[in-house]
């Protein structure tokens, strides 16, 4: 499970803080600070994994981080996650941000904090990785921002348009997985189908 996702800049200013386990506010702030100090000490060319000791109240936890230009992306995970897998998940996250913001930079993260959270929500829910397919995530996010525009445009329109807005559905997102025999088949379980 992923316990926390932290993004901060080279000066330790938090840019995104998401905890998936309940911790008191002070503890969260302390974790952000200590993680920053742990990560800052490290050169860029040594390994991307770090044991964070008893920071989360157990010895099982690990920090996996990547450093991009001015930002550190740090995932705190327990032993049930694959280290290299998470490392590439960070890459996917950043690439997705890049696609959604077109050349993402630190300012995007600051001024569109809510949007960054929404993108993250499509990837990781409640500490579990839900989606790793970049196109799918971008499609979901774009569908929602289209909606945003539509609503923005409609907001000045007569009130009868309101019900139309309310019932707008997500546009069809094609996802070619159900073509012919490339479905995943689980023969032993057919009785449940």
């Amino acid at each position: 499970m992923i316990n926390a996702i932290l993004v901060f800049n080279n000066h330790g200013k938090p840019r995104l803080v998401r905890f998936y386990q309940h911790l008191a506010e002070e503890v969260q702030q302390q974790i952000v600070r200590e993680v920053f100090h742990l990560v800052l000490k490290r050169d860029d060319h040594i390994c991307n994994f770090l044991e964070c000791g008893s920071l989360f109240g157990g010895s099982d936890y690990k920090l996996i981080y990547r450093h991009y230009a001015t930002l550190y992306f740090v995932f705190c995970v327990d032993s049930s996650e694959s280290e290299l897998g998470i490392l590439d998940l960070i890459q996917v996250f950043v690439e997705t941000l890049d696609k959604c913001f077109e050349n993402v930079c630190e300012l995007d993260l600051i001024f569109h904090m809510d949007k960054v959270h929404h993108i993250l929500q499509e990837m990781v829910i409640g500490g579990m990785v839900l989606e790793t397919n970049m196109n799918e995530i971008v499609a979901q996010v774009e569908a929602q921002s289209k909606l945003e525009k539509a609503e923005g445009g409609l907001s000045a329109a007569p009130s009868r348009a309101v019900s139309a807005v309310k019932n707008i559905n997500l546009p069809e997102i094609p996802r070619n997985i159900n073509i012919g025999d490339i479905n995943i088949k689980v023969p032993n379980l057919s009785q449940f189908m």
Partner: protein
Amino acid sequence: MSDVVERTLSVLPGLLGQHDPGAGPAGAGGHGRVSSTSRLGSLIRSITALTSKHEEEKLIQQELTSLKATVSAPTTTLRLMKECMVRLIYCEMLGYESSFGYIHAIKLAQQGNLLEKRVGYLAVSLFLHENHELLLLLVNTVVKDLQSTNLVEVCMALTVVSQIFPREMIPAVLPLIEDKLQHSKEIIRRKAVQALYKFYVIAPNQVQHIHDKFRKALCDRDAGVMAASLHIYLQMIKENSSGYKDLTGSFVTILKQVVGGKLPVDFNYHSVPAPWLQIQLLRILGLLGKDDQRTSELMYDVLDESLRRAEINHNITYAILFECVQTIYTIYPKSELLEKAAKCIGKFVLSPKINLKYLGLKALTYVIQQDPNLALQHQMTIIECLDHPDPIIKRETLELLYRITNGQNVIVIVQKMLDYLRESKEEYAIINLAGKIAELAEKYAPDNEWFIQTMNSVFSVGGDVVHPDIPNNFLRLLAEGFDDGKEDNQLRMYAVQSYLTLLEEEDALYPQKFLQVMSWVLGEYSSLVTNVDPEVILTKLHSLLKKTFVTSETKAWIMAAVTKIASHTSCSKTVDKLIQEFSNSLDTCMRQHAFELKHLYEDKALMKNLLPFDASCNDMVVDASLSFLDEFVAEGLGRGAAPYKPHHQRQEEKLSQEKALNFEPYGLSFASSVSSCGVTGRQSPTGLSFGSDMSGNSAETGHKETNTLKLEGVRKLWGKEGYLPKKENKVGKENEPQTVSCGGLLAVQVGDPPALQSDQVASLSEEDKEKQQLASTLFIGLGSNAGVSLMGKTDTATQKFKRKSKINETQNSEEATDFQDSAASDFGPLLDTIPINVEDCEGNIDTGLRKASLHSSDTVEDNLAFETPQSLRKSGLNDRLSDNTLSQSSLFADSNIEIFQPSPSAHCESASKTLLAPSLPEELEDLPHSEVVELCQSDALALYSCKVWTDDSLLLTVFVSNKTTSALNAVNLLFEEAEHFQILESPTYQFPVIEAQSVEHCQKCVWMHKICTQGVLSGSVNYQSEMESHFEFSITLSLMDFIRPMEMTTEDFGKLWLSLSNDVKQNIKMSSSEGSLSAALNTLQQKLKLHIVDVIGNEGILACQLLPSVPCLLHCRTHSGMLALWFRSPCSALPDGLLYQCQKVMEES
């Protein structure tokens, strides 16, 4: 709702003038994207302009105040509210509390349009936590959104549910979410599965009935939904792998298809098909195949294929490879795969990429126990890693070395660890490493000097953060001693001398724990060193007492040491000075100590008696009833003092007084002052200082506790077998030089890695030579051709310190083996005096008897010890045994001794005739019990089990029947440690012999340790026939096996009910045929063993307890065909479990 939106929208145009809505995400880069008037923007800009933390705080507080005013103003539109929420999120991220906004976040989620709702939900999931009271207000919104026709709303609701949801409200949304599993959109199905995963994690019992639906999700036509369901399966399999073995085939098929590229290209990441999915599946397979040959065989092919396919040189393929390797080493081994996996590990270790190297080391650490040769192959790399600049790599290398430590390389490895310990700053690393060093030092110390020096370094470097077990274990080791009294004294003397040298240094700052260890050792053993004047030691301790950095706890230790030393000096100036000095100390504790010392010092004989030399391990007889105070009490009562009331009685009185106003006049203050005086007197430093005066004893009891409680982490080195006769020790010593020389030879062999042949040797640089030398010292004694044992851990022959367990010796006498040794002498008194043991002894005689009759030629010697009792009691024996059957059940209850229950000899004979039909011994037949079921069979043995539900435990009876025609010797039954269950005595049982064609049985008392509705207790049997055979079995135990009725009065019920806090309520439909309350209660009573306390009208109260004594109360009420159940218990998981059982039995009835 819609009119709220309408109103909102009508206000918007006015607002649009102020805010530029066109700040779309697709604008130009950088600042251009930020709307110039955005308030968030200006907030952030002003924060960036600040220079100090203090200014930031001021600014944010200002911002929060203005936000507070805005959000609570009634005129604030939802759109503005949304913006406020984003600003609040920002403030919270910076660590400023903004709890005033929480309720508005919920409101926004409830009332806003899609966009506002989205921000509202986001804010809620960021601000609140699972147990937050405001969260209940969200439930209604979630329910409404789940029913919405708008997909986006449903999605948002599902997202928020899978992030955060109150546990007790799950029933409200569960049916809605179950419906969503059939939704036509895969994104909805995926999120629904994710929500169910969340429910499974926080309340597994509530989703038990939908396991079928999980299976459906697993074979969903969309791969994303299937992948989401794997989270649930991984979790469930982690908890109980045996329940899902049937799915192995499905997981293998899925993995095969993924690896084979059957998924759409969409799922590829750097042209690797669905890597994260593969990783997840490999983990699941590893868990399923662990220790299970048949299941493992199913996955060999697909693992091989995965290894083969993952050849592209990308990070993510290494992730898959690493997972494959781990799985291969976890499941039942197959040599071909192991070879390939080993090659893979090589790839990792030798990789120039630092991440892969780290993982390679991790993999090596993981496999080293199975394959020590692998470490030999990579020894040079490991040496290089030891000096790696990255501390993480270094630490992992030390972890690896720790696992390969043995008697020959311990000095080098511990040295390396100490070097690292001195450098590291992180507390966690220090604690961890100090523990490991202490463990290795105890286990493999080559000599006294080294041991003491190493421990000194651990204490001085580790400081006060080291785990308290380390000093405790160390002192215990010194106190209890080893096999050899002379050795013991040498070790103690060396310790004393080294501490004296350390204390010699002026201004040296030692950690408190180290000082405590020093003072204890000096106090106990300084008299062993004859060439040092006690006066010198006393002076040193005295000067320590005056240091400011010494804490008062340490001072107590030092005072205790002074007292002990003073007890065997005739008269000492230092002691007098010390008494004088501290008699007026401001520290009351010290003053108390000083006074005690003063009084004791006046009566030397008493002092010697009180503090005998080297008696820290001797048991003390404590008069727990404090009978010596009787006179004092009587005198007190005579003078009119109030009699003593136990705590609970006082509590009750206090409660009853609190409920109403007190109209009685206050009593005389006299009585209470006396009693309070008594109390403080008892808690005063007397108690404290007595503990420390005899700190030997107090420390000792502490040790005993840790011995029984906390030994899990520490390898059991000083167990019951700790005491070994001297003869054996000598053998060990004779062996030592041999193994060393053998190792020396090896060092030469090992030191030449195959890559470096003789022609290259000349070109080796100095540095390389050094490294090679280090390698040869580090990896000495490793490898299959090493002659000594492969893993240092198992080699105990070279172990230096073998603790003699004085405590256990006495306990052991109850055990059969010891009994045989001492039978002749112990038997008589045991038979006469201790009623509980009588039966037990007879049990032993009985086995002895049977042995005698069957193996008369072999066991003559064994029987010698039994001869007298045999002849004496033979006639009476059978009578006694038949009497026993009545008392037996109560016997189990009270005795902590191993239950050793022979079947009466007559019974045994009949068993051999009616072959292999296990039946319960007579004394258990009358108790409620399950049927005897077969657990497993092999050619030679069959295993059966039967559950006997006694009043205070579940008595698990395991029958072992020997199907062969020859007797089986030394059949061992071993239960594995289970997460949920606890076996009261030792988890093993040995049948010394099982005759041909006969059945033996053993019984184990089991308690439920951690609540679950159903769990598995597994174990294994091994025995010696021609070769050592071994097979495994598992027994399923359910919660109901541990539930017993609890009898109580209605009044008690009421009291208990009010004192319990965890409650669970649920309504169950009653089947129309049995609509009455009494019928329902009867069902519960009969099937769930609940005790009906009372029935009043349409309400009934029931009580039960989970063994050993966790109560659970149930209140039932019927209304309009529904049965409302309300559980309360001090344990939060128990009501859930019982509710599930109730639902089940009510459905059945």
